[in-house]
């Protein structure tokens, strides 16, 4: 067994590390710490943040890829051989669902297939009947299993909460527990705990039952929809976060230098972003993806496995999306830099002979932070939704990759069936809705607190 990281995995972990570093830096500045404290004073923001953390947790689980060694055969030398396919931690957790594919569609919790098939019984008579599903226990005590799952879920979430209260209370655990229970803490921890309990219990319930049923049904080729929806989380979150972050340095550098240096630098940068933003977004993305497809077809040496291929395509898609989306932020940053560089403290710094780089680092960037943050959280939900549309247009992620867009795209063709095959569509939309709603609510709150115009 060895660790095999994909390109996007590496980016995800770099992102996590930089987020942690940023959090550490922020926690030293009392001003910024107070701002974030204000953000999370709203219980809606707190609940949204917990939901986003839950999604992030699945993204991280799905971003550790392993390669198992093949069974050693006598002919090979002592060098260890590895299997072709990579497996993520999430795949390991859901290994039972990957192996237990059915033949075709089945509804959530169904015991029989969705469509009738022709069978010949012992007496040689041909008839049409619903075949039982292969990997579903036919007569099963669903109540007992649910009860067991819920109790387990409560225990896990209770353990997490107790750990958190212990860490927070620093000694008098009993008072802290009482305050949290009565909702008397400065931050709405009660909401946070309730959200955690709800999410953990729901997940354990789904997970336990997934051993005995297809909780959200199966798709056309019998794949488990719950597993697909969970796998899609990584795609959605990655597109939402990495797109903005990948282009952030470009937008900041160009925006700040346009605002600060003026003259021909300003003209050139303004020309660049006006030109890029005048091309309709979807068309630029489509043209970029078409180019990328041809490039990848011409260079098969870039990837070894299909997983690496789809991963590379995701990375390119993120870059193309980034190229089309940095212009708005750049324009905002340029205007704000222009405004800041007129203020007295910058003029004073200039008069004292402080170098331009120091001015940018000490005076300009800290005053741009709120714009950058707001745009990162604002863009996130739009990008998650855009992924679905792009997959529909045919310029989204690789068709072999799990994503909500691909799920919707495949299920869309089955709308005309009677009765409808609704569960694939439903699961994809619900998973996407929860993520986007949480992101929207949190971004509203962040915007309200961080935007200086709302101070009044």
């Amino acid at each position, binding site marked *: 067994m060895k660790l095999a990281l994909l390109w996007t995995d590496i980016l995800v972990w770099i992102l996590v590390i930089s987020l942690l570093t940023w959090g550490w830096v922020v926690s030293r500045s009392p001003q910024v710490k107070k701002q974030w404290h204000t953000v999370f004073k709203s219980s809606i923001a707190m609940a949204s943040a917990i939901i986003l953390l839950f999604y992030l947790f699945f993204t991280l689980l799905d971003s550790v890829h392993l390669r198992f060694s093949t069974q050693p055969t006598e002919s090979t030398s002592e060098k260890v051989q590895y299997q072709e396919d990579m497996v993520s931690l999430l795949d390991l957790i859901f290994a039972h669902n990957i192996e237990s594919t059915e033949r075709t569609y089945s509804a959530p919790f169904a015991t029989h297939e969705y469509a009738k098939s022709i069978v010949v019984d012992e007496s040689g008579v041909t008839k049409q009947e619903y075949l039982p599903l292969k990997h579903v226990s036919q007569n099963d005590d669903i109540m007992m299993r649910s009860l067991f799952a819920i109790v387990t879920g409560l225990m896990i979430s209770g353990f997490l909460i107790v750990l958190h209260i212990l860490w927070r209370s620093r000694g008098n655990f009993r008072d802290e527990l009482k305050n949290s229970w009565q909702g008397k803490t400065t931050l709405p921890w009660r909401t946070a705990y309730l959200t955690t309990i709800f999410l953990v219990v729901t997940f354990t319930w789904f997970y336990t039952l997934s051993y005995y049923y297809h909780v959200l049904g199966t798709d056309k080729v019998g794949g488990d929809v719950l597993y697909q929806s969970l796998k899609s989380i990584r795609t959605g979150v990655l597109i939402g976060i990495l797109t903005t972050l990948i282009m952030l340095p470009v937008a900041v550098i160009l925006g700040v230098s346009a605002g600060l240096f003026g003259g021909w630098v300003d003209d050139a940068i303004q020309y660049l972003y006006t030109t890029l933003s*005048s091309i309709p977004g979807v*068309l630029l993305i*489509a043209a970029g993806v078409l180019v990328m497809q041809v490039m990848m077809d011409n260079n098969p040496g870039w990837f070894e496995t299909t997983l690496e291929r789809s991963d590379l395509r995701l990375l390119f898609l993120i870059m193309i999306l980034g190229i089309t989306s940095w212009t708005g932020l750049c324009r905002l940053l340029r205007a704000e830099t222009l405004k800041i560089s007129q203020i007295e403290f910058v003029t004073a710094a200039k008069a004292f002979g402080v170098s331009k780089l120091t001015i940018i680092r000490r005076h300009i960037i800290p005053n741009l932070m709120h714009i950058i943050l707001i745009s990162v959280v604002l863009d996130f939900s739009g990008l998650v939704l855009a992924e679905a*549309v792009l997959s*529909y247009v045919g310029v989204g992620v690789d068709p072999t990759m799990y994503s909500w867009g691909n799920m*919707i795209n495949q299920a869309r063709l089955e709308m005309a069936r009677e009765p409808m095959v609704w569960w694939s569509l439903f699961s994809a939309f619900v998973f996407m809705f929860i993520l*986007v709603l949480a992101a*929207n609510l949190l971004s509203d709150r962040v915007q309200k607190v961080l935007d200086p115009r709302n101070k009044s």
Partner: protein
Amino acid sequence: MFVYIIRRILYAIPILIGVNLITFMLFFMVNSPDDMARAQLGAKQVTPELIRSWKEERGYDKPLFINSRSEGIAKVTDTLFVQESLKLFSFDFGFSDANRDIGSDIKERMMPSLAIALPTFMIALITNISLALLLVLFRGSVLDTSMMIVAVMIMSISGLFYIIAGQVLFSKIWHWVPISGFESGWSGVKFIILPVMIGVFAGIGAGVRWYRSIFLEQINQDYVRTARAKGLSELKVLFGHVLRNGMLPILTGVVVVIPTLFMGSLIMESFFGIPGLGSYTIDAINSQDFAIVKAMVFLGSVFYIIGLILTDISYTLFDPRVKLS
């Protein structure tokens, strides 16, 4: 004013050249003239001579950016890039892979696109502004807060969901309107109603929130307080002062969209089988027809730039303080 418009149009030219440069580079990065010749002539009996004569016939034998064989200014002008750009600037889009004239295809498909996009735009504008005014009138009330929550929810649902749910409910289950198709003239209204309604509804969340924030920004201004102090009724304040002064930010966001309505909506048109420019583009993307994509990119940028110029002009009409010079 006239001089200003002329100057803005002249400003637009370098931007369009930049757009051309980007699409040209994307186009020829993947699709060399040799590939195009092979695709056009068919895979069978392609000889190097045939390819060369095909390229010469269409002027594709020239170098991309710099022609070292020519003299003087022709070194730059006698190249593929300049030749292709000039064609685009005269709105000559050439032929698609299926050997159809792209220019006439676009003309034909513009009207169906507009038949969907224009009503959607108008109805959405009116509903969003009136809803936002209503919420501002009752600001801080239960109605306001609950509607804002609903707006966030509407915003958070994928547009694809509205289309699919709309088609299933109104066409499949209730049979009110046909599921897809298009007819020109008044008989086509039944095809248009559903996509227009869905388009309006999908945009209502973001729209109402945006207009509401614009009006709320105005309502805290001093002149509004003065107007109230004069004894004007709240409704008169809203329509006479808040709406009129909110016009400027609204124009910035709205006027720029109007010319791009011609481009149609990719998703709507392909779901509802409308033969407009949106579905034209989707088909081109799916069949990897780069000539059409290139033409649409150019057209889209032209419309966007026209929108920017129109925005500036509309400022002078609504705000006497703005002088174009």
